[in-house]
């Protein structure tokens, strides 16, 4: 399941460099924490885990729309603050047995800087 999810959700379309938007430095986000980036598409939650990996998901749990940025982050997962659904940070897919998906957005680190693209990753754009 996990392996499959990774394959589906990693951005496969090449994203042009111009689309990357600098949103700040990694140190702006606490370890195992998240910040919100406000965009015309709605809020996007930007996560940083203990290993300093960064992830970006639409700030809405697929269950009841809870703000994922407010959840507890562990490993590569966030637990939604409203009803404790677990959502995979890489893909936005709810951890089984729950079902659903939050749109994930391409994000990358360039040194200290965090860049975000507002084109949702493949496989989750519809959600």
């Amino acid at each position, binding site marked *: 399941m996990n392996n499959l999810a990774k394959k589906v959700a990693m951005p496969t379309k090449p994203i042009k460099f111009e689309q990357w938007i600098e949103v700040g430095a990694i140190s702006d986000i*606490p370890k195992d924490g998240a910040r919100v*980036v406000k965009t015309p598409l709605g*809020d996007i939650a*930007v996560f940083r885990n203990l290993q300093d990996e960064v992830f970006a998901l639409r700030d809405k749990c697929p269950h*009841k729309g809870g703000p994922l940025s407010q*959840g507890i982050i562990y490993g590569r997962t966030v637990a939604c603050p409203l009803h404790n659904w677990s959502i995979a940070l890489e893909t936005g897919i709810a951890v089984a047995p729950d079902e659903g998906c939050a749109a994930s957005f391409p994000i990358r680190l360039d040194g200290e800087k965090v860049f975000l693209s507002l084109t949702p990753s493949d496989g989750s754009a519809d959600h």
Partner: protein
Amino acid sequence: MKRMKLVMVGNGMAGVRTLEELLKLAPDLYDITVFGSEPHANYNRILLSPVLAGEQTIKDIMLNDVDWYEKNGITLHLNKKITRIDRKNRSVHADDGTSAGYDRLILATGSNPFILPVPGNDLAGVISFRDIHDVDAMIEASGKYQHAVVIGGGLLGLEAANGLKLRGMDVTVVHLPDALMERQLDPVASKMLQKSLEDKGLNFLMGKQTEQLIGRDGRVAAVRFKDGQEVPADLVVMAVGIRPNTQLAESAGIHCNRGIVVNDTMQTFDPRIYAIGECVSHRGIAYGLVAPLFEMAKVCANHLAEFGIGRYTGSVTSTKLKVTGIELFSAGDYLGGEGTEDLLLSDPKGGLYKKLVLKDNKLVGAVLYGESTDGNWYFKLMREGTDVSALRNRLLFGETHLGDSGHGGQNRAAAMQDADQVCDCNGVCKGTIVKAIVTKGLFTLDDVKSHTKAAASCGSCTGLVEQILAHTLGGDYEAPEAKPMCKCTDYTHDQVRAAIRDQQLTSIPDVMAKLEWKRADGCPSCRPALNYYLISTWPETAKDDYQSRYINERAHANIQKDGSYSVIPRLWGGSVTVDQLRAIADVAEKFEVPTMKITGGQRIDLLGVKKETLPEVWGFLADRGLVSGHAYGKALRTVKTCVGSEWCRFGVQDSTQMGIDLEEMTWGSWTPHKFKMAVSGCPRNCAEATIKDFGVVAIESGWELHVGGNGGVKVRATDLLCRVTTREEVLEYAAAFMQIYREEARYLERTAPWVERVGLAYIKGRVVDDAEGRAAAYKRFLESQEIYRFDPWAERAKGVDKHEFTPMKVIEGQTA
């Protein structure tokens, strides 16, 4: 790395459970080979009785099918009996010539039914009740023959007799002792059981010793007893006991003594060889019930996985008879003896009998007949060694009589319909749970939680789910004695806490490293618990890790369904001034707060505040002298009061001032779960102090102190702790009680279940009787308050944790 070879002889419940546990811990450590002498994969032997009775089918009771073995890379040899262990060359050999080498060997050979050594015991139609083969034989015989005789009036014999009767046979139970199930029941309960089984149409021959089985044309036709009596029998089921199957072990020179002798880590005298299940003798006891076997499995797997923690130290067992319509439960020392006393409730005509055996104010045994729904509760009290002296006058009437009048709904599992909802949070019906238990082979509460979500949210139906588990699995269900904190560790809450204290661990990474956490980063269940244990144990040195706190505590406000927050300023003792009311009105107006609400704890709730606005709102309130009400935390919430003697014509003490004093002392303190107090100015108790964690009721001569109340999902009235005279005493007792709760209760355990778990006598011993201990706890409380009694709102209004409340970036305009 080359994998080690693990071979298991035997393919029953205990053995396969060991493999399941092992695969969870160390999936890649071994190449596993299993030999089973039956042609079936692993099935639930406990449920053979319902299969015989026609209530379930073989398919229903399969636990692991052949696919499971394949999926887990296990080599499975069915229908092959191992006849020889070559310990020198470390290999096992089957009757058909198959052999396998091992680095570690598990003997899970189970037990054999004991066959009476009487002439004719080898005739056709003489069987035991042990496996699917026997059940098939019984079902077949019931279609062709009339007379069945079951020899043995124990649990298994009675279940067999009941099943055969339901299949239309004429059944006689023969029992050598004078009383049925004499190893589980006292004589009174035994007689009552016999009576109701007779009413169901079973015949009993008590005190009869079988002399011979008489055959005709090679098949059994009658049973003759020592006294000369003969009864016709076309089918004889021997259910006179089991013997651990030690033949293979003995032939290999492994020490056996009425069972394969093992130590607390389930190793035999050959340390490469483990033994598990019904074939073992542990500290001189051979167990025949599934719960102890599963406990052994856990320990065995842990050692095979090279974790090396955990010992099996024996089990207290309980039994339930799986005969539909008969409620029977027995556990522990049901007969009593030197130094024990009995509590009895006997209503033979009404078919009700309860006997509880107490020793040193603790429950040590129980027999329940006619009404066994409280069995699990009694069993829990036994296992946890709860001091029951405070409840002994109500104990016999069961848990529902302890003031648990709320929605919790224990003890009704049996009466529920399949469509009845059990878990109101997640909308799970009884039928769904039963189906999951039966079809997925679930044995524990955790299994049921993850498969069905029942009891996975507020937990108030946990008792009911456990009841359903017990009811579905029959007498062999036992709640695990000590549950690990979460899936990240095998340690319990208490063990983790002790390690934090004894090894002076002061950070979450320290704890995880020292205790070998299985997931580097923990999970949302253990991290908040660890953070709490750290800051409550080491208030001065442990750093409060906000990322391990639930959002409400991290943001110091309560998250609402739309992602906005609620703000509840502290109103000391529930009293307000004009200025405070004006400040609240002003802040609501200025920030356009959509909804205001008076809370149950006498506070004013401002709902629908956006997160970014929180610091500003707080700053506004702080300027007007208002501080955080901690309505969002596992912390001191509110002290509710009535007006008391200052105004009330009945009031005997100044309850409002007492409430303010208590709140000023305790605000800001973090507790295992939320903590509420109330002070009433007279015994009319208008502040409802007797459903609070700590309640104070004024009396003419001083104050009554009450503890462990709860007004939530499961209403519980407080227990009276003691009476005191002065204001100072009230403060000291309150702080001491709170501090001991903070130090000893498990995270997310309210005072109500905590007091029930440890017993009121224990709390009294610590808070009332031990003046020195109380003073010390009071001091520790105040020391911790030196650090934690501050207003988190004012800090944040001045810029602390700014990142929590501001967006990282605002991207304007259109997107591509």
